[in-house]
Every structure is written in structure tokens, then in C-alpha cells.
């Protein structure tokens, strides 16, 4: 199963289990979404529960807040994360704070799904990684899967969660994992050992990281596409790295991070988003605050550049094997 199919499966299961789950968004109904993540669901569950919306993200999220206030569990899709900004105020000022400001009278159990990240020649308006804008907001949870297995289990948990969740889907790895070597042919998920997706219902708790690979030499903190890229580079360089897929950025699994850093003493954080005030800065600060005496080298931060995503030069922007490789060398004290 690829990641799209796993997401479709999760949505199908949750729609079947809970009549209050509704799906809405641009093109999600009849057509099944531009990435086909909601394919077949309108046919199966009817237009009351899976429906197309106007191109109006403020309306999509605003209506979802009202639906949640009624008692539904909306799962709106924002077609690309780059287009979440018109709905941003409804997310950060409304959904995120509804529970707090009404002291539990109204809650917003909304799961906003949105494909994010670059690497598909999407240009600057189909490639952004805006996760840090949401991790900064009290009241939101931010979840990013990196495998079909996790995508299904985490999405189910997100829909069941009674808080608003931003569920970012790394679209570069919808169809197969990505090792960062963009000029080599990509492998499909079916050839990936960790991609088996169990049938039926299962969930993966939010706030729990996954240790992708145990190791002694250094800790890699990553999420989404970058989990695969960082792992591939470490393997190529023969580095015995411990690779942690954070899976949930808020709330973050600090225990798993601390345990690993205490063991390895060296840390590299990797994300695709722009560098300044990115989520990597938060990770570096957390490690510095909590594990300083275990550190044997300055923490490395590998990110995209502080520019918009350039179309023709997207691979120059992308934190690929060279950038990650240099950081590993610095971290391990090679020249």
C-alpha cells in the first residue's frame, strides 16, 4: 500500500466507524481529491458526509469549526499546504482556542489534512512546509507521518483526538520513499520493508516518536520525507546513527529524544522548511536545555534555505545528501 492508499483506508475506516466524521474540501467528493486520497468515499458514504467545497479555505475551516461545534468531526482537506493561509485565522484564532476560551463548552475535534513539502517541481506555491507556523500556536497538534503504516495509524488517532490536529502529508513520499538522490529512479512503497499496512482499524498514539534505526554515533531528529533522506545518507556514509522519526511535532515525544541524545551525545536536526525560526530551532533549543551535559559537539541543523521554493532550482534548495553529508562530517569531527 502506498501512503495515499493508507490515508484513504484510514478515512474509510473512520467514516465507517463514526457517523459524525465528515470530509470536505476542494475536489474531494466526486473526483476524490487531486491526489486521490478521498477517492471512492463520496460514492460509499454519500454527499452528506463527503462533499466538494468552494475554493475558499477561510470558509472550509470556518465551516468546519461550526460543524465541530454542532458535534461533528470534520476532516477538511486543504489541497496544498501553501493554500492554508486564507484559513489560517480560523485555525489559529478559532479552532485552536475554542476549548480554552469556552472552558470546554465548545471543542474543535477537526483534522485538517494537507499535502506539504517539495520535491515534485511544484514551484513556490505547491512546495511549502509551514509546520512551524502551527507548532507555535497553543491548542493545535501537528502530526507528520513518514510511512504508509504510520500515515494510517496516525490519521486514525488524529480523527479520534478531541483537539484540532494539523495533519501534514509529505507528498514527495506519497508513492514511494525518497532517498534524496533525485536523479535516480524512485522505488515504490511496495519494495520498502517498513511499508506493510495492516488491514482494519489500528491507531498510533499522537505524541510518540518512532526510532527508525538504533545507533550509537549520533542522533538524527527528522520527520516526513527527511526521515528517509537522512537515513539514506547515513547509510551511504556508513554512519551508525540513531534515527528518530518524530511523527508528532506537538506534543513532542521529549523522552525518546532525551534518551537517544544521552546515548549518542551528537545531534543533527533535519527539515525541509526554511531555516530561520523553523521547527529545527525548537528542537535545538530543547536538546540544548535538557541534554547539554551529554553533548559532545555543537548541534547541527540542516534545513531548506530562507528563500521561497524556486521552481527550476528546487534540488538546489532541497536539504539533500551533500548538505546532510557535510553536517554529519562536522558532527563526527571529520574535516
Amino acid at each position, binding site marked *: 500500500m502506498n501512503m495515499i492508499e493508507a490515508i484513504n483506508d484510514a478515512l474509510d475506516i473512520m467514516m465507517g466507524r463514526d457517523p459524525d466524521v*465528515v470530509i470536505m474540501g476542494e475536489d474531494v467528493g466526486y473526483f476524490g481529491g487531486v491526489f486521490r486520497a478521498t477517492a471512492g468515499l463520496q460514492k460509499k458514504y454519500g454527499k*452528506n*458526509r463527503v462533499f466538494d*467545497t*468552494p475554493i*475558499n479555505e*477561510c*470558509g472550509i475551516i*470556518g*465551516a*468546519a*469549526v*461550526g*460543524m*465541530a*461545534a*454542532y*458535534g*461533528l468531526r*470534520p476532516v477538511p482537506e486543504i489541497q496544498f499546504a501553501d493554500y492554508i493561509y*486564507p484559513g489560517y*485565522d*480560523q485555525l489559529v*484564532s*478559532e479552532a485552536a482556542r*475554542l*476549548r*480554552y*476560551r*469556552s*472552558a*470546554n*463548552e*465548545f*471543542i474543535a475535534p477537526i483534522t485538517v489534512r494537507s499535502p506539504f513539502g517539495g520535491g515534485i517541481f511544484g514551484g513556490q506555491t505547491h512546495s511549502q512546509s509551514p509546520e512551524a507556523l502551527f507548532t507555535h500556536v*497553543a*491548542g493545535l*497538534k501537528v502530526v507528520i507521518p513518514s510511512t504508509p503504516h504510520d500515515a494510517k495509524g496516525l490519521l486514525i488517532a488524529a480523527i479520534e*483526538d*478531541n*483537539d484540532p490536529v494539523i495533519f501534514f502529508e509529505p507528498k514527495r513520499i506519497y508513492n514511494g520513499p525518497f532517498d534524496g538522490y533525485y536523479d535516480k529512479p524512485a522505488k515504490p512503497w511496495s519494495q520498502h520493508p517498513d511499508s506493510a499496512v495492516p488491514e482494519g482499524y489500528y491507531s498510533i498514539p499522537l*505524541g510518540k516518536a518512532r526510532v527508525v534505526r538504533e545507533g550509537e554515533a549520533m542522533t538524527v531528529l527528522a520527520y516526513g520525507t527527511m526521515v528517509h533522506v537522512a537515513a539514506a545518507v547515513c547509510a551511504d556514509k556508513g554512519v551508525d546513527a540513531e534515527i528518530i522519526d518524530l511523527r508528532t511535532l*506537538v*506534543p*513532542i515525544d*521529549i523522552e525518546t529524544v532525551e534518551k537517544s541524545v544521552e546515548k549518542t551525545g551528537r545531534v543533527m536536526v533535519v527539515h525541509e522548511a526554511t531555516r530561520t525560526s523553523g521547527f529545527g530551532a525548537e528542537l535545538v533549543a530543547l536538546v540544548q536545555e535538557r541534554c547539554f551535559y551529554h553533548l559532545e559537539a555543537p548541534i547541527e541543523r540542516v534545513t531548506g534555505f530562507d528563500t521561497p521554493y524556486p521552481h527550476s532550482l528546487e534540488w538546489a534548495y532541497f536539504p539533500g545528501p551533500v548538505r546532510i553529508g557535510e553536517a554529519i562530517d562536522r558532527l563526527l569531527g571529520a574535516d
Partner: protein
Amino acid sequence: MAKGRKSLARGGNRPPLEFYVPEPKFRPGDPVDFVHVQVPPAGAQPRPDESCAAVDTSPLCYDLVRVLDDEHQATGPWNPRLDGETLREMLRVMALTRAFDDRMYRGQRQGKTSFYMKCTGEEATSVASAFALASDDMVFPSYRQQGILLARGYPMVEMINQIYSNRADHLKGRQLPIMYSARDYSFFTISGNLATQFPQAVGWALASASKGDSRIATSFIGDGSSAEGDFHAAMTFATVYNAPVVLNIVNNQWAISSFSGFAGAERTTFAARAIGYGMAGLRVDGNDALAVYAAMQWAANRARSNHGPTLIEHFTYRAEGHSTSDDPSQYRSAREAEAWPLGDPITRLKKHLIAIGEWSEEQHETMDRELAEQVKAATKEAEKNGVLGHGLHHPFHTMFEDVYEELPWHLEEQAEQAIRERRIKWPTWKEYEQ
């Protein structure tokens, strides 16, 4: 000028363009004459069937639905024909709203809370609307619909607890005064971010429709806020899905110091925005409680029978400051409120009741005295739970609760930090001992 950029001055011999900035008719010190406000005779407006095509309401978007005439009689097809008892009850809640506002305004001046917002002159828009709705129809209010809570019998003491942010405030002292939330009264939690409630109301209405419920939703927004994108998002969603919702613009002429021209009022009416969306629209004399009742009843019936949404413009006037932080004498003529051609909604309803032999000046005076006493008693009761800044607030730890359903580790750590700071400052302090 930006570096490296050529001057933006005009070239050639084309005529110079003019930058237009709207300006209200009167400023402080100016004489006031509302001749430009067209007030059609009461009773002259046709009342189309509630199931009519939206386009049939178009003329009413430029007209003004009015029921009470100059002799204080109810007239015309929009006369809702309410009995004396209902009219008296409506009058009582409108007067109660004003009494409540006056007392709370004074409370703010006495330092019992930080802030207050009155709805003086607009009491009919909320109270008469509430009377025309079912008590379980969902309201997504703005901050000047306290009249709806009072009409629905929400306890005044609860409202004052909220305004004082005291230990009995069921919102745990988190919200600005007057930002009520009353789920049991079908009253949505008020946001400080203007206009956000509009698409939310539509979403609630869609949910109600998709579940085959019979409850409709309604929302209120100011004329100024109607310039927000959320307004248009709501209008689009409401028409696209034929939502069972009544969307209200309370046009009280002012948005703090900006007159309604800054929201587009110089070019058309607010109700006319319905036309472009293919939505039913009504423009109503917002100071005529019977007209407001009739319009809301029309729109609610229409929504309830699956004939779709309605936009209502309540044409009214904000007779007092925007809030306790505002001084309207700085930006508008002091004579505006008294010169307002549509009068005062309470006075008009009172005179109507007197004209039909259902009320008297003496009864009204007695009622006003009783209402003032009632509000005073509620205030005293609420004050036992504390006023803002005097220590009787919610336990400290509640600050960190309800951000998420469960307390995550980072908030737990921050809560411990906050309590440590507290102990350093007041060594004998204990969380639950106040």
C-alpha cells in the same frame, strides 16, 4: 521611495487621477441633518411569501421594512400581530438590556472590570430577533447581542461573573468581559476576532441540515466587520449549500471611529450584498422591534422549510461609545444620536403599547425601577464572587488547563514553573486556599 526606483509621478498629458477617501457627513461640532437617510412610510413594503425566489426580495434590499408608523400603530403586511403580553415581554427584555448595560458601564468606571460594551439603541435587533427564533436555534453572536442571552433567560449573575472574571466565572477568567459562552442556551462562544463567527454559523447550519435536525443557525456581525473576507466566505458557503441560516448585519453606522462608508455603505446597502449571491435579503428598520421580529420570523421560517439562507441588514444607530475605551465625541457630532430619524427602539415600542392601550407611562416607570433593582441585586450577588483584580479568581493552575483535552508535558512543566514563581513571591501561598 524604494531604492533604485523611478519616481511614481504622472507622465504625459493624461488627467490626474484622484484618490478618494470616504468622509462621514458630520464631525464634532457640525450640525446634524439626516435628510440623506431615506425613511419610507411604515407598512408600505410588500411581504413576499417565505418560499419565494431569492430574487423576489431584491427590492426589499434597498427598501426598509417598517411596521410602526408615526402614530405608533402597527401597520402593513409585515405586522407580526403579536399579542399584548408578548409585546410587553419584549419591551421588558429590551429595557432590562439597557438597565444591565448602564449598571455594567458604571461597574467598569468603578474599576470592577477592565472593559464593557453597550448596545444602546440596538436593543431591538437582538431582543426582537431572539423572540422570533426558537430557543434552541443556534446563535453565533458578535459582542452586542447580550439582549439574546437576556431574552433566553440566561442568569444575569452568570453574565456579571463573566464580566468580572471572578472565581465563579464559568469561563475561568480567560475571556475579555462580555465575551460570553452559553452552550446550554445555544449561544456560541464570542470571539474577539471580528467576523470569524459568520462562516462558523454556516458550518453549524450545514451540520444541522446534514443530520436532518430541525434547528437553524443565525449569526450577527457589525457593518464594519462585514468588510472582512469571512463575511464573503460565509455568504458563498451559505448560498452554495442552501444553508438553513440567517445572517445578520447590524448596521449601527459606526465601527469605532470609522463610519459605515469604510465598509462600502456609500455605494449600496448592506442588504444588497445578498443579491449578488442569489440569497434572499431584507433591509429592516432596526429600531422598530416589530419589523425586526417580522423579518427574523420570515427568514427563520424560510430557513426551516429548506428554502435557504437570508441576509438581514438591521438599519440602526449606535447611540453610545463603541466601548468603555472609546470617546465618540472625538470623532462624531454629539447631536447625531438624538437626531437619528428612526428614534429609540425602546421608546417606540413603549409608545406602541401605550397607543394600543396595553401599557402606560406609570407602568413603564415602575418597570424601569424594578429592572434597575433586579440588576443591582444580581450585581451584588456576583460581587460576592469577586471583581477583577481583587484576588477572587480561579485557581492558578486553571491557566494551563483546556489548552488541550489532556495536559501535555510541556504545559505541566510550565505550570510547575508558574507555581514556583508564585511561592517565591508569596512564600505562604497555597493553590487552593484563597
